[in-house]
């Protein structure tokens, strides 16, 4: 009975989630939505894991050998039982899979649908630094500097600077090997490679600084290919861009 109720709820949730794709969210930051799906998922797999674990531990403790000549008492199952033990779990797993798939798809639409009028910045990855080209032709870079012992001393260049409250789309490519552009605080990443243009978008809601870093192995300085996304209020951003132009 409980199994039936669960699958009905899961099935209904899947249908509901499919019926309302995330249009309303399209202009928001992905981070809260990602965190919400992540929490749902943790609860979901936590429940499945706990059930399996409790049953396993109970069996392991309850069925220890009592005498030397004791044998296990598991009986050959009837055809009906056998089929039920295949179809019911399969149905539950499938229902859960589709429920999760629906949640994932909804967030995916939000992550991949670039809002109209997004501010476009062209990103180029190279061994081992980043170039960000702005619509007016300004190029801002970031290169990590380190001393002879290999200790990082600082970052040369401003890296990615964006205006607060205005969606940004990154059109990305690479001049050499495969890199990957990752902003952990925004929960987004996508690879850059020669010969293809990939994209990411995000909405910088609050002013502040966030790390971006390379997440596709690219040789010796793979771990030193990072910088900061700086989110400035519009006026400060305009001033920054103008100062770059002059320089």
């Amino acid at each position, binding site marked *: 009975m409980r199994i039936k109720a669960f699958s009905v709820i899961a099935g209904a949730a899947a249908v509901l989630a499919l019926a309302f794709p995330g249009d309303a969210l399209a202009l928001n930051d992905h981070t809260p939505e990602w965190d919400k799906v992540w929490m749902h998922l943790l609860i979901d797999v936590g429940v499945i894991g706990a059930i399996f674990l409790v049953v396993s531990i109970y*069996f392991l403790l309850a*069925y220890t050998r009592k005498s030397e000549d004791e044998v296990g008492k*598991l009986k050959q199952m009837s055809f009906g039982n056998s089929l039920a033990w295949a179809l019911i779990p399969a149905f539950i797993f499938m229902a859960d899979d589709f429920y999760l798939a629906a949640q994932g798809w909804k967030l995916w639409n939000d992550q991949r649908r670039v809002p109209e009028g997004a501010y476009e910045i062209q990103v180029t990855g190279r061994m081992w630094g980043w170039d960000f080209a702005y619509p007016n032709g300004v190029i801002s870079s970031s290169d990590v500097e380190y001393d002879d012992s290999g200790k*990082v001393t600082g970052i040369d260049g401003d890296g990615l600077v964006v205006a607060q409250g205005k969606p940004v789309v990154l059109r990305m490519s690479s001049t050499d090997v*495969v890199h990957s552009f990752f902003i952990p605080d925004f929960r987004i990443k996508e690879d850059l490679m020669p010969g293809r243009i990939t994209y990411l978008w995000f909405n910088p809601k609050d002013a502040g600084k966030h790390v971006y870093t390379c997440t596709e*192995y690219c040789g010796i300085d793979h771990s030193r290919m990072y910088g900061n996304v700086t989110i400035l209020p519009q006026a400060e951003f305009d001033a920054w861009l103008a100062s770059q132009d002059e320089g």
Partner: protein
Amino acid sequence: MKEWIFTTDHKRVGILYLIGTLAAFAVAGIMALAIRLELWNVGPGILSGPNQYNVALYFHGAAMILGFLIPGLTGFLANYLIPMMIGAHDVSFPRINALSVWLYWFGIVLALLTFVIPNPPDIMWTGYVPYASQYSGGNSAFYVFTVHLIGFSSILGSVNFLCTIIYMRAPGMGWNQLNFFVWTIAGAFVIQLIFVPVLAAAVTLLLLDKYFGTAFFVPDSGGDVLLYQNLFWFYSHPAVYVILLPAVGALMEIITTMSRNQVFNYKVAVYGGVWGVVLLGSDVWVHHLYTSGLADWLRIGMMVTTLIISVPVGLLTISLVGSLYKGSIQYSTGMLYASSCLFLILLGGLTGIPLAMTSLTLHLAETYFVMAHFHFIMGITATFALFGAIYHWFPKMTGKMYNETLGKISFTLNFIGVNVTFLPLFGIGVEGMPRRYYDYAMFPQFQGAQQIATVGSFIIAVAMALTFVNWIHAAIAGAPAGKNPWGSASLEWTHADSPPGPGNFPTPPTVSEDWTPYNYEKA
């Protein structure tokens, strides 16, 4: 010595595989310790620099997967057990079997040359282009030829074992009377036979690009970078099941024997679980390319197929747990390893579910979360299954008994060690710590978790050292074990001596219609 090198006996071939795999495991394990030590502090550590670190990472990954896990389960375990489980005197093609182990050994030697040659490969076990083909200063050819040798060895093994399972079963043995392990090996070798050639093709094209000036992966000349990634994962995702299926098979044998029970829902586990994994496992490789810029619809499609893998894997897990029900469980060291896998497979399997979801993976890809996930499911579960199997069949292989107390102490340390090492890495992975980093200057807040993991890795090292001491000591000076110390109903225990002589069985076994390897009520 000569009769070992030129042997065609499947048991000796199996032992040769075992020695090679444990050697690969030991060296790759030492690399892991070096990696963990390097990560103790933010900034440069004990290694000479990022290049040495990258070579250690390359060797650790390539040797653990290609040199230890796959040959350990499909080379050593399959060789030693399959003919005896089906009541055969040897494999179908004993000389081809010998050739397989030779090719494997040459592969291992070639891999070990990493530490001798100038400019060793630093291209990770994935060998992504165009880094591996155009930009790396390392000798990618050593990687390519290692894959060729071990891959060729696997293909020969596939043909050999599929023929053996189909044609060499004892008179009277029907398909539904096979040991579960035999089914998982059949599934694993079907995967190898179909997909290894694709990997061989991918790395060969890499070789041609690097040394002969072709442009399969050079976009400027009409090539495509993603072609390599698709080909590579078209094999390398199914390869995960080449490791997982025999591991589950070995676990099932240990669990049923030590609880004197039959396999819970045998037919569903075989035809739904094993073959379901084989069938679905080939349609999910794009989840390794979720952030690579492939078409959005393709990523969604593979999200669904990847999630559905939970159905056959769930059926297998239910059978593993169910086989304990109303059992008569005796805790040997092998059984402790098998029991702990019921936890490890959950942890590793369920952390795979967010990674199946393309939207969550947009954040999680290439972080420590992925790394901890595949270490739990592929690295640790499979290694624990293999180590449990070595303990379990140790009396059969040597005729001698290992030290049970030392075995249980080393197991406990090992289990604590793997959890101390990898659980903190899930946490910092979700926080954004990327894989394959020599330095993490941008995330100094992760230093504490890195240090806990490093401590854990040394607990594992102590456990491994104790395990090796136990095995070596027991093989030389262990007490006689007898023919069937666990009271198993499987043919290799009931009909063969310990250790089995040439031809395995004093008299070739025949089985009746109601015989199964799990029939403990009759035994």
